[in-house]
């Protein structure tokens, strides 16, 4: 399908229409998005905490690209294409620890954990492991540009995006005081939700506070709609609240605070979507990251990770916190799945935004339209 006219999406929020249905349902346009919105930009791939030790390797199929995240003996986390430079064989099938070198299972070419090609058995014939035309120094694993921020591993598949710190300078500055060591809560602080929706609807729903009174009555009972404010920027959007209530266990114990936060964080929390596919939450005593993995235009895997200020957090509180957030995120599922089914309605024109409440959602739509339009020439 050709890219629809997106010029109305780029109007100011009070006049704009939302993105047309086809951008939520059409497989061809989904492929175009994979290139224009993910490969050309910095997209969230996984979390560094999944690979804590040297040699840890995790294969990830990311929008059809076989990638390999690998922590080297030097402690550096790198992302490579998960294929041998010889015959393109997949190198690592399941997450595991590489004890020494990474050996291709086909002809046993071996790579160091920093990607260097270290041996090429019989490449010059039986018993000859070198050949004048095989330059090992030029045949290391192909590197994918990556960057780690707040434990999230981002990749720029095209290699052409401006530096991550430039693209997200405004957000990095906004959360400068929260930029400190994060301790992943472990297996009880990680869960996955499979949702029958387009990835953008998950972002859109996360960005805005408008739905809170109706979809999250529990949250709204102490943090009311009027306590929230919009956060709008070219590469991220979301909402914050001036009323955050700490979780307490039966004995009144709370989670330990991050060090040195300003007074506003005593009662504040912020929830920001980093375009295209990362949802972040920051509080005085914990943080979370939700990575969105599109699986076609109508399915998304949401991978949730919770973080704390120290390693020594009460397991009971950690589990209580994870359970509470899981309930909140599950409350959103009927909404994002309902909007996805609604995108089958030929009479839906992308929708009309609330000029007061939908600014963050419009930020995403404008970000998408500008990039898709630049490719399709339709804006």
């Amino acid at each position: 399908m050709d890219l629809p006219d997106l010029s109305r999406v780029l109007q100011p929020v009070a006049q704009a229409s939302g993105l047309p249905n086809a951008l939520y349902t059409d497989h061809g346009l989904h492929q175009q998005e994979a290139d224009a919105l993910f490969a050309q930009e910095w997209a969230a791939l996984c979390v560094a905490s999944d690979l804590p030790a040297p040699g840890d390797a995790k294969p990830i199929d990311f929008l059809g690209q076989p990638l390999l995240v690998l922590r080297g003996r030097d402690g550096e986390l790198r992302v490579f294409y998960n294929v041998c430079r010889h015959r393109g064989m997949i190198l690592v099938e399941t997450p595991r620890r590489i004890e020494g070198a990474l050996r291709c299972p086909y002809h046993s070419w071996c790579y160091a954990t920093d990607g260097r090609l270290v041996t090429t058995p019989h490449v010059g014939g039986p018993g000859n492991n070198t050949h004048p035309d095989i330059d090992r120094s030029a045949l290391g694993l192909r590197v994918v540009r990556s960057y780690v921020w707040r434990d999230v591993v981002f990749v720029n598949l095209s290699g052409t995006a401006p530096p991550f710190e430039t693209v997200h300078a405004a957000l990095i500055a906004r959360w400068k005081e929260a930029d400190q060591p994060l301790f992943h809560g472990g297996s009880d602080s990680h869960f996955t939700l499979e949702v029958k929706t387009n990835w953008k609807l998950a972002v859109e729903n996360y960005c805005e506070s408008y739905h809170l009174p109706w979809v999250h009555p529990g949250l709204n009972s102490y943090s009311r709609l009027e306590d929230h404010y919009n956060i709008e920027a070219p590469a991220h959007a979301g909402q914050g609240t001036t009323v955050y209530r700490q979780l307490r266990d039966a004995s009144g114990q709370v989670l330990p605070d991050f060090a040195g936060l300003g007074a506003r964080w005593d009662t504040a929390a912020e929830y920001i979507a980093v375009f295209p596919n990362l949802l972040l939450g920051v509080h005085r005593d914990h943080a979370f990251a939700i990575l969105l993995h599109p699986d076609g235009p109508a399915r998304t895997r949401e991978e949730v990770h919770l973080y704390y200020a120290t390693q020594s957090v009460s397991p009971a509180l950690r589990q209580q916190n994870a359970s509470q957030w899981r309930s909140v995120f599950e409350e959103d599922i009927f909404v994002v799945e309902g909007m996805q089914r609604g995108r089958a309605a030929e009479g839906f024109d992308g929708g009309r935004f609330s000029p007061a409440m939908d600014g963050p959602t419009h930020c995403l739509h404008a970000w998408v339209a500008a990039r898709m339009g630049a490719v399709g020439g339709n804006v």
Partner: protein
Amino acid sequence: MVALLEAEALEARSRTAEAFLLTHAYVLSLEAGLPTRALLERLQDLGAES
């Protein structure tokens, strides 16, 4: 397995057979993170490795 291959290599009847067996031992050692210097030197002496 590595030790077995090394022992077989000592009995090899040709340079190619010896290099073949040592290469196998070398690859397995690399993969397992075992010491490889001695094997590499033997392969280099045979002209099989750079």
